[in-house]
């Protein structure tokens, strides 16, 4: 079974970063592998360990994207492909189109995992669009894999306290939710191997895509100024009193 996991780097929001309005390309930031991708990687690794599978990490972007791929390799992926298109895509449709073309080129892929969303721009639309481009079913935010048959998967997901058991025929697109389990920490030996692994690079032409073929949507950034924080230390003799004062204060602000 061949499984593709689409991964990407995101901005580490715990660290300083800058996104200028005029050219919405983030800079001066610490890149990290998208934490949601880690959950999907964990799900794919779980399948690999339990049912055996070939895991291919896939990303699109410039050389900086390679650190995400290397981390995926360190966690246990078998190979990695980076699609170099000459521009750094921010727009979901463009990314999904490239991923779809790459997955078709890889061929005989039975599952394609994506992160449910990125933690920086939080669009959460690549997986759905990818399924649309490929014409595959899409199982979003699965929490467990119940069983895996040669041609279909039965999985579970929890939405608003309700448990769903869902199944779909291969090939399909999936995202994993947080409940799937904490992603493993890449081992030193894995990282060491991943640092030396060669990453295959494909160009847009390799995928038979021309840039103008893709419906480019201009993404916009707006600066929204937030109200200044109001700070006040509440000191009262006991917790009940503190809660009472707090309640009054909140009611003053929120009508």
């Amino acid at each position, binding site marked *: 079974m061949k499984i593709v996991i689409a991964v990407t780097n995101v901005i580490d929001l715990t660290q*300083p970063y800058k996104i200028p309005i005029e050219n919405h390309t983030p800079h001066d930031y610490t890149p990290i592998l998208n934490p949601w991708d880690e959950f999907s990687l964990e799900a794919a690794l779980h399948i690999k360990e339990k049912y055996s599978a070939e895991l291919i990490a896939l990303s699109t972007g410039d050389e900086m994207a390679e650190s995400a791929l290397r981390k995926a390799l360190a966690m246990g992926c078998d190979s990695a492909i980076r699609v170099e298109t000459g521009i750094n895509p921010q727009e979901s449709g463009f990314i999904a189109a490239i991923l779809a073309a790459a997955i078709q080129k890889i061929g005989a892929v039975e599952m394609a995992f994506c992160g449910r969303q990125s933690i920086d721009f939080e669009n959460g639309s690549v997986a759905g669009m990818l399924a649309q481009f490929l014409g595959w079913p899409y199982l979003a935010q699965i929490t467990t894999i119940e069983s895996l048959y040669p041609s279909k998967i039965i999985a579970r997901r929890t939405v608003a306290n309700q448990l769903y058991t869902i199944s779909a025929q291969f090939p399909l697109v999936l995202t994993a939710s947080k409940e799937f389990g904490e992603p493993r920490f890449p*081992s*030193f030996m894995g990282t060491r191997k991943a640092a030396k692994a060669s990453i295959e690079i494909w160009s847009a032409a390799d995928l038979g895509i021309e840039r103008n073929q893709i419906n480019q949507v201009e993404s916009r950034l707006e600066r929204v100024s937030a109200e200044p924080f109001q700070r006040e230390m509440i000191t009262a003799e006991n917790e009940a009193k503190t809660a009472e004062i707090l309640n009054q204060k909140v009611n003053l602000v929120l009508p």
Partner: protein
Amino acid sequence: MIAFTITEKIVFACLLLLTTYWVARTIRQFSEIIQRGKNTLGKFSFTGLLRVLWQKVILLLPTWKTRFWPNLFHLVIVWGFIFFLLTNLIDLLSVFFGEISSRANSAHAYPFVSDIISGLILVSIIFFMVRRLSKPNPFRFRDNVLSTPVVDQAILADSLIVGGLITIHVGSHLVAESIRTQFMPQSFWLPFASLLSPLWAQTSNPLLLWKVFFWISILSLLVFIPYFPKSKHIHLIFAPLNFLFRSQQTSFSSLPDLNLDDPQVEIFGALRLEDLERSAILDSFACIMCFRCQDVCPPYQSGSPLSPAVFEINKRFYLKENAKQFSSSNYDSPALTSYAISSQAVWDCTTCGACVEICPVGIDPMADILAIRRGLTLMENEFPKSFQLLFRNIERTANPWGLSNQQRLDWAKGLHVTTIQENPHPDVLWWVGCAGAFENNAQKASRSFLKILNATQLNYAVLGEQENCTGDSVRRAGREDLYLELALKNIELLNQFKAGQIVTSCPHCLHNLKNEYSSLGADFSVVHSSQFLLDLVQGGSIQLTKSADQTKISYHDSCYLSRFNQLTDPAKILLNQCGQLPTNLQYTNSHTYCCGAGGAQYWKESTVLTRPVNMERWQQLTAEPVSQVVTACPFCLTMLADAGRIQDSVIPVIDLCEIILNQMQVGEK
């Protein structure tokens, strides 16, 4: 004149040959076993040998740190043993060549000395037997420590066998001498032999009886020799060897570097006994199972399953049971964590070095524990889960707090601080350290130190945003790769500025910058803030006024300052000059007691212990009424402040710099 028959001589010669063969075989096996370890032992030197013989064998210097009376009796046995080497040689030669006699006066004294020594040895052996068999003996360990089930009884049996053999050997020699006085009166008074000699007054054939006891004495030695290598008493050979062949260390328990890029190396760190250093295998033969290390081990005293003593004993027992397989070079021994030390014990170690400091035979269990941590982390990806955050933070932000280096000078807000950008060629480069920059308690100490620096108008600078973690905690958590990354970056950075002197308030930073980086090519002059402040006081830059408060204070020595770097005096001199009266602490100076933070414990979710290490230390420090607890390490500061808070104590925990700032006046210079 006593003569031996030809049969006696032949039988004895055969036994001697057999023993010699046995000894040769045993030596070969020991050397094969030791050679399975990694790296080489230290080089032999003749001066080293003389030093070891004098300091460690004759004077037994390393033993005197604790247990005075047992040490005294042990000293008698050691000196007695050395004397008996001569006695046995004389006895042995006398079998073949008849009695050796000399007219020299000293030769006449020989039976007297021999008599006294035999008597003293027997008295000492009785002391040790009673001590060993008495209920509250120090040779026990808790049930939660991983050990082979038989260890407890085996140690006792071993002691009894050896005690018995010494008693037989020396006792029968003494009896033989007392019988001899019946037919060969001695010119010297023999106090112990003459006590026994009346017993033989009625004997019809004293010569035969003498022979019986003479042979018992000699043959007991020949029984002892083959038993000896299996017993812990082989330490009388291996303890001096262990001191002699310790791999040359540049600093206290310095860690061996790993070449992570070497494609030939398949195993980093240690998972099995043969992955450890050769000196570690030598250690297990040298161990005397005295449990001194367990007594001073803070995690053990806190209820952890870590006992450095039992770890060494487990190694030893494994080798005893599996000597033959283990000596063959292609044998894979089982994982150390399956029989020698539990993985919880491995991760509970605070790397305080107390076990290394106290060991009378030069064993370093801490080095092994750190090697095992490397093996578990690098090879097996097994470490306490809370370390994931530590590793991730170091990877992303180059400091354990995970805060951006852009915030590194936030602690100095409102104060003037000179950065390296403003002053690229400072006389003094102040390495603030991550704790000093990011941790609340330590920030206070940093501000005090900064005020002192500003007041003295020294030409200094801090690295600010350019500073990174030294890598101490990740190195002690086994992540040598992260440590190397940080260390090489730091060395390159510090080399750029060529500061005359680096000063730091963090003993862990100090130890790395000063000692551990040296194997990576660093050569920095690094001092701790306590040394630096003492220099300022002695140079007249600042004057200290005596405090009016006559309540005592407790000064807590940080392990990495006092034990690893022997820097305990500067702080004490400064406190004395501030008129602060210290309490009497049992654990102080290089014999200090850990605060519980070292060895990356600060970053580990603490395991449930009967009494956490910092609480134990807090108890010791506040046993007497004190006005404050003072320390000179940011990690100790936090650990002790936490302990005080949990105890609802009002005693403040403060850094040495804060006291100095309060008590100082800037001198005219």
